């Protein structure tokens, strides 16, 4: 059956497969709902209480200032001693670039678990249900995670756990409504949030939240290398606008680019010099191409081909995952004869394919190992978790698995 014929026939075949017939349970259902109270309108707080009111700090009474100063000094002394001790015990990885491979962090029915990639031994770091969407801080010391009981709904909780299991911190709930994005700063001391269009910064040490006033609705907020600046995106119709600003001086917001159509998978290279993204072109085309945008020069380059003759044998690309050294982008290459992981040189050039080509009926998360020498790929259920060397040599299936809903690999000192 030709492509066009499938497109044309689908609506009528779907209607034939499931003809709309009034279900016999409608009367029973209406009987149940008639006896069921509705959730009162006043319980939807956001409908009538301004967010600024909800987030107002509660007034406190007078505090013994001298006592607090003395306690603070003692605490600082203790923390400094602990810090010196800890610093002498463990070196941190570089802020960006290749690092050593630490533990793999993922979720299971037990909660957040760590896996020793050498032995496959796992340890529960945070016990709980419905935990997902992990992100290990670039310094390798903490992992953040979400609790999402209902797919597609807002998270009900977010926490940060020390990778050694020693501490955990809860993120304020008001950052979680409409959460679109969160990301650790390179030094692991702050987390940027994009929630319900607003950008906020969470300070891990103090627990303080600072709102960043931006003149656009942000869909993401990513740190640009070690500059301290953030890159945020906002979708306006069929254009994605990219902005750059300092979270500490948001008045200096500058628009970096307007990207055609709806750009997806926008990610800043680890060295902060470029962004990569892919575009699914006009709706009738459904064709993905990866672009690299140089933040210094403003030059935008499509690094995968657009082949007009490829309608019958399409090769589309989706996803952008940077290698630690910012030279390669891993993407899923969608071919007529199956899907495969492709390594795209950020400077352009022929892609290198790794791993098997297969017809995939699910998503295929991929990530570089911190040392940049391999890719960790979670193939759909039943086909396993693989480590694929980027040099193209034979990969191997590892004797452990990660959850497709979230995993990350801890960076450690080389």
């Amino acid at each position, binding site marked *: 059956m030709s492509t066009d014929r499938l497109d044309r026939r689908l609506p009528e075949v779907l209607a*034939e497969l499931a003809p709309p017939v009034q279900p016999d349970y409608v009367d029973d259902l209406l009987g149940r709902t008639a006896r069921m109270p509705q959730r009162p309108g006043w319980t939807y707080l956001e409908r009538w209480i301004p967010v600024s009111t909800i987030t107002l700090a509660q007034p406190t009474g007078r505090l013994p200032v001298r006592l607090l100063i003395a306690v603070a000094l003692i605490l600082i002394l203790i923390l400094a001693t602990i810090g010196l001790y800890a610093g002498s015990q463990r070196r941190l990885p570089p802020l960006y670039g290749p690092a050593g491979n630490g533990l793999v962090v993922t979720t299971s029915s037990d909660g957040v678990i760590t896996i020793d990639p050498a032995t496959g031994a796992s340890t529960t770091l945070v016990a709980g249900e419905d935990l997902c969407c992990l992100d290990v801080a670039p310094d390798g010391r903490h992992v953040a995670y979400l609790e999402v009981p209902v797919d597609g709904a807002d998270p009900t909780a977010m926490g940060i756990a020390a990778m050694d299991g020693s501490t955990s911190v809860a993120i304020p709930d008001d950052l979680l409504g409409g959460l679109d994005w969160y990301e650790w700063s390179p030094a692991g001391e702050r987390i940027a949030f994009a929630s319900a269009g607003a950008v906020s910064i969470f300070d891990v040490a103090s627990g303080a939240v600072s709102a960043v006033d931006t003149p656009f609705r942000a869909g993401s907020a990513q740190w640009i290398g070690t500059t301290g600046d953030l890159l945020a995106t906002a979708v306006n119709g069929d254009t994605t606008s990219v902005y750059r600003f300092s979270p500490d001086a948001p008045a200096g917001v500058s628009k970096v680019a307007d990207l055609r159509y709806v750009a997806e998978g926008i990610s800043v290279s680890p060295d902060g010099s470029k962004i990569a993204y892919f575009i699914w072109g006009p709706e009738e085309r459904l064709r993905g191409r990866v672009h690299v945008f140089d933040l210094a020069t403003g030059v935008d380059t499509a690094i995968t081909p657009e082949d007009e003759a490829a309608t019958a044998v399409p090769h589309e690309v989706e996803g952008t995952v940077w290698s630690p050294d910012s030279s390669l982008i891993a993407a899923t290459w969608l071919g007529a004869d199956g899907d495969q992981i492709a390594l795209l040189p950020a400077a352009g050039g022929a892609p290198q394919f790794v791993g098997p080509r297969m017809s995939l009926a699910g998503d295929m998360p991929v990530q570089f190992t911190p040392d940049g020498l391999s890719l960790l790929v979670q193939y759909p259920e039943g086909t396993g978790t693989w480590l694929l060397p980027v040099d193209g040599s034979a990969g191997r299936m590892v004797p452990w698995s990660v959850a497709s809903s979230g995993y990350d690999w801890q960076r450690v000192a080389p």
Partner: protein
Amino acid sequence: VDQRALVERAGRGDHDAFAVLVRAKAARLDAAARLILRDRELAADATQDALIRAWRNLPGLRDPERFDGWLHRLLVRACIDALRKRKARPIEVELQPLDGPSIGDPAQAVVERELIDDALRQLDPEWRAVVVLHYFLGMPLPEAASTLGIPLGTAKSRLHRSLGLMRLAIADDVATPSLAKGHSA
């Protein structure tokens, strides 16, 4: 009475208005759930769950014009929840059409329908949801993406890949004698 007025009345607790809305929507919602889940019983459960959630939460719907999209989103979530709760692999059942439209070559149409049906079964339910929303409920992709709570590019990607997989499956089926095919029950 226009739908907006019915939604506003239902949101204020008018159950009669809600009943009119349900009777107008239930058949199509149930059919969409059957296509996504490929299981008649699960689909009935998911549709009822979505409609109960709709009644409970109607007072929180800010814009009555978005009722249809909101209801479809509740339905898709109920379908995914139904699969999660079931944990075990859903039973695949044959969905028999009542009356197919007349087509020039009935035999060829039946073969095509079976090929598409088989191909559709092989998709992940969340991918199938994009196909159903777009091709069955007639939603433009941006609206389907919004309904599913996924970025537009993800919806396009899933639709593109779903169609690609279906074409592959159909090509395989055509190349394979039909006696080799079967349905798990």
